[in-house]
């Protein structure tokens, strides 16, 4: 099993979620994060003093998936989150040793 982590632009979250849902992907966990990368931050000015805000708002999506689904999910996310502009974000995949569904105690792929 794998964990797919994607950093995307906030206003793309709904598109990604809908794409995953249509493709029958059962679950996602999302969180607010701030990203620092090629896409610059911005400057805010208060009473004439400038404040550099280096981090830009992003959303992190995490999806647990069986090995066979990984490529499909990565493609779905890439497709739905892409705007072609700098700052679209990253996706990375890591290996998961085991998964448990808390409600039932089920483990492995059944728990996803």
């Amino acid at each position, binding site marked *: 099993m794998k964990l797919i982590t994607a950093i995307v632009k906030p206003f793309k979250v709904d598109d990604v979620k809908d794409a995953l849902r249509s493709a029958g992907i059962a679950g996602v966990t999302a969180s607010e994060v701030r990203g620092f990368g090629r896409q610059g931050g911005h400057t805010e*000015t208060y009473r*004439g003093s400038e*404040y550099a805000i280096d981090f830009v708002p992003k959303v992190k999506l995490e999806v647990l998936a069986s090995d066979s689904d990984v490529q499909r999910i990565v493609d779905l996310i890439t497709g739905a989150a892409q705007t072609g502009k700098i700052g679209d974000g990253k996706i990375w995949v890591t290996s998961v040793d085991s998964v448990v569904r808390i409600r039932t105690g089920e483990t492995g792929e059944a728990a996803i």
Partner: protein
Amino acid sequence: MESGNLAWILISAALVLFMIPGLAFFYGGMDRGRNVLNMLMMNFYCALIVPILWVLVGYSLSQVPFENDFLGNFDAFMLKNITEAGDGSTLATVAFLGMFAAITPALISGAVADRMKFSAWAIFVPFWLFLAYVPIFKWVYGGWLGQRGSIDFAGGTAIHVNAGIAALAAVLVLGKRKTGAAPPHSMPLVMIGTGILWFGWFGFNAGSALAANGQAAQAFMNTFLAAAAAGLAWVLVEWLRDGHPTNLGAASGIVAGLVAITPAAGYVSGASPIFIGLIAGVVCCYAVKLKNKAGYDDALDVVGVHFVGGLVGSLLIGFFADPDFFKGSFEKGLFFGGDAGLLLEQALANGVAIVWSFVVTLILMLVLKNTIGVRVSDETEFNGLDLAEHGETAYHS
């Protein structure tokens, strides 16, 4: 006293009281989310301690008897000899003035934000009240400065210049913040404060006529126009200079205009408040940047807005004062057929207030620094004052 006049003083007094939370939110919103409660507490504290001190001896020392030159006496200790349930005019006036006494030290809190020990603030306020506020108030209203001819309708010299220069003295002793400046943690809270301040300032200025009469109506109109003009001026300077018209600019301009019109509200007429507002808006918009060059850390710009705004307004009286309109006994401003006499008196009165307030505040802060200390620990400064000083956190989920 006519019931209409009493009603006007009473509602004006309530409006000025309401300005204290207004000021707290204006400052608190600008502050960090981990220091906002400390900021609110510094302000609310003034509304708790000052009223008591005011009726005990503050009013008496600053007013009774009205004719003396330097300081009042203890004749009206705990409102003694003010026993007039039948009419209520003096009682209402004492309450009204008590609100002014409470908000003046609160103004200073914006400068010392983010690093002053609350215990030091708790001692600073009552001492400052008696060392700086009461004497300057006395000199300006009925005392030697007022008798010479300077005028100050609702407290430009006695309140804003006084508190503004004290803020400078305080931060010089206090030193800079280790955490530097930060953007406002809640602009909506700043704007809530701004709305309350503008609303309350109608009581502050128009209430200072101490009657619902023509002077009150003019002071009201002036308060309306000067705030608008200054807000507009500040926003336009920003738009041209920084590329964006900002809410904080509008709020700061409104407050700068209100400060500047405060000393002049009952003495100027026609288009004068618009000019005073425009000038104050532009000048203060630049003045808040002085601190970066001069190197003092006036966290929320008490010097740039209250000191500079109050001084500008007080000096502009020397140009715009219009006694004919008010059938008043003050001198004419330069633009209304007067000579430089009034302007010089205004300069003198402010000069005296500045020197006195700066020196006593400096001494008071130095004494505090060398006794109980004035700064929180670096760790508290970094982790936030709310938790360390008040055991509270502003927001929970």
